[in-house]
């Protein structure tokens, strides 16, 4: 592809071995990104399944969430982001083990407010090489994918997994900066790259 490729020989996992619930489950989130970047808030607002579940939320205050109450779990997050393509290989982030199920967690954003619907989704990213300059772009792709697919009550926390990147702090600060992410979404060049990465998402 590109002669300047940073990691020309990455380790690739067999896609069939990756954990997924995609095939049996209906893909109700599918294709939201096609509506365009700026439609993300609206599309998630319009998600009726999420709001309909809110009455159950208060009952899980003891932290004992059943299947009905919490339909969006770590596996679903994994299915959303593992199908994103790497910006320099035509391979998914799941197959490259850039994202993996154990490095995803969902927890209440305001633990001391049991009635709060806010949830923080943490996705730790493991770049294929420790000096990968595309780490920021990969992180942004993951964040954009989640923002487009999840209801607005979710707060995104996309970070480089500790010890896997030389400038992790810098990348993390940028990925956590709402204003920078918002501005990136209006940057046509950058969004072209992101859109290409998300093309392979179901």
């Amino acid at each position, binding site marked *: 592809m590109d002669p300047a490729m940073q990691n020309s020989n990455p380790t690739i996992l067999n896609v069939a071995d990756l954990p997924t619930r995609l095939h049996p489950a209906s893909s109700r989130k599918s294709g939201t990104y096609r509506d365009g970047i700026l439609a993300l*808030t609206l599309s998630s607002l319009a998600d009726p399944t999420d709001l309909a579940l809110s009455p159950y939320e208060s009952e899980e205050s003891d932290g004992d969430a059943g299947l009905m109450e919490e339909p969006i779990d770590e596996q679903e997050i994994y299915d959303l982001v593992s199908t994103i393509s790497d910006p320099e290989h035509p391979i998914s982030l799941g197959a490259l083990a850039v994202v993996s199920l154990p490095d995803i967690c969902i927890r209440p954003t305001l633990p001391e407010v049991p009635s709060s619907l806010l949830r923080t989704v943490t996705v730790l990213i493991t770049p294929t090489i420790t000096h990968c300059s595309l780490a920021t772009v990969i992180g942004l792709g993951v964040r954009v994918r989640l923002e487009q697919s999840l209801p607005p009550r979710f707060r995104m926390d996309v970070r480089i997994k500790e010890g896997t990147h030389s400038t992790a702090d810098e990348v993390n600060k940028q990925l956590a900066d709402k*204003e920078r992410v918002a501005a990136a979404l209006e940057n046509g060049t950058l969004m072209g790259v992101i859109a290409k990465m998300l093309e392979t998402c179901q």
Partner: protein
Amino acid sequence: MADPVTSSAHLQLLSDLTPPSLERTWLTAPHPRLPIVATCSSDKTVRVYSLTNFRLLSTIVGGHKRSVRTAAWKPHAQGESVLATGSFDATAGIWRRWDSYGQATDGWGLGQRDQATNNHDRAESEADEQDILRRDASNAAEDDDDEWRFAVLLDGHDSEVKSVAWSPSGMLLATCSRDKSIWIWEDLDDGDNNFETVAVMQEHEGDVKCVSWHPVEECLASASYDDTIRIWREDLDDWGQVACLRGHAGTVWFVDWEAVDNVPAGLVEETEKEAWREAGQRALSGPRLVSCSDDRTVRVWRRQPKEQAPVAGTAMPSIIRPTGMDETWEEEAVLPAVHDLAVYAVAWSKTGLLASVGADGRIVLYEERLVDVASPQPMDTEPPSSAPAVARTEWVILAALTGAHGIYEINHAAWAKRADRGRDESKEEEVLITTADDGSVKVWTVER
């Protein structure tokens, strides 16, 4: 919300501003004189709402190619309102409109109309590329006076403009950007919408998120992605950094100044207030700063007492002063921790209350109280000059509201004079205006 220390004070929703933007709103700027506010939206427009009936008055469209991130009203503009906007498109815009806003009975003087036409032509010739004076789609039924004139585009920053602020006199406009710089522009007020670049300051090591002017002096505070706050003054025609405030452990999102005559709650008598000011050498340290950060804290900063604080308007520094312009600022207080996520904005009310908002959807109100009000110190003895006894105060949480805009993050908070029919005319009431990710803008009163 639960804070054991304090009273039954709470925030009462007065109204939403309607209709709202359908996209994220970033900031709402209250007008210095009129009961109107300007709300900046990701939909590239600015909505002007009435604080009298909370309805949309007009939508300013066409000037910016990307999100409008920030806006500020020029103080002391005569007979017209002047709004500066800052956008992710790397430019700042200046907009004008003759006053008589939202008062259908007030017609326009003929002279004003002539002038308006002239400005119209000028603006058109100056910025032909801009989609200027595009009429608000919703104002077909409105009168002709619902007209915002795009005056000029200030071009210079390399990337997104994050904040704009007018100096107290209205002569200077500060803009800041992701390009790490702060620009100071002088409004030449020559009728031709000319602005001159007075200074470009590049000391910050990251995005400059916010700029805010001292309430009476030509002194600017800035907050940055580099986790610092910096203070800037002009020294013999040269703008330079006079202090760098370190303490926050993350991006500093916002800074705001205390009112000049502010005193802690509970001081009613003028003599008490005077005693407090003297005890802390407040006149020499000047108004304090409040800041908020990605580190989830809100902090109050105070300048060390300093002789010869420049006076408003005549900020000509003395060249014989040995210490130069440098100022020493210290962190006076870290406010009680409430926020669970980044704190995006903090606002200091005229009556001394602080309000902070953030990504956790909370609004938190704080009040400053004297620690030992019961035994006021007699002030007939002179305070020792070496180690002045600073009257001790503490900040308490007055109220905290979770989910103030439902599940959405709150990007901004500002205080404004209450103007609706429900106000108590015998006193000057303030309202808090909060601006959120879903486009909603809410107006609150503080009930005590």
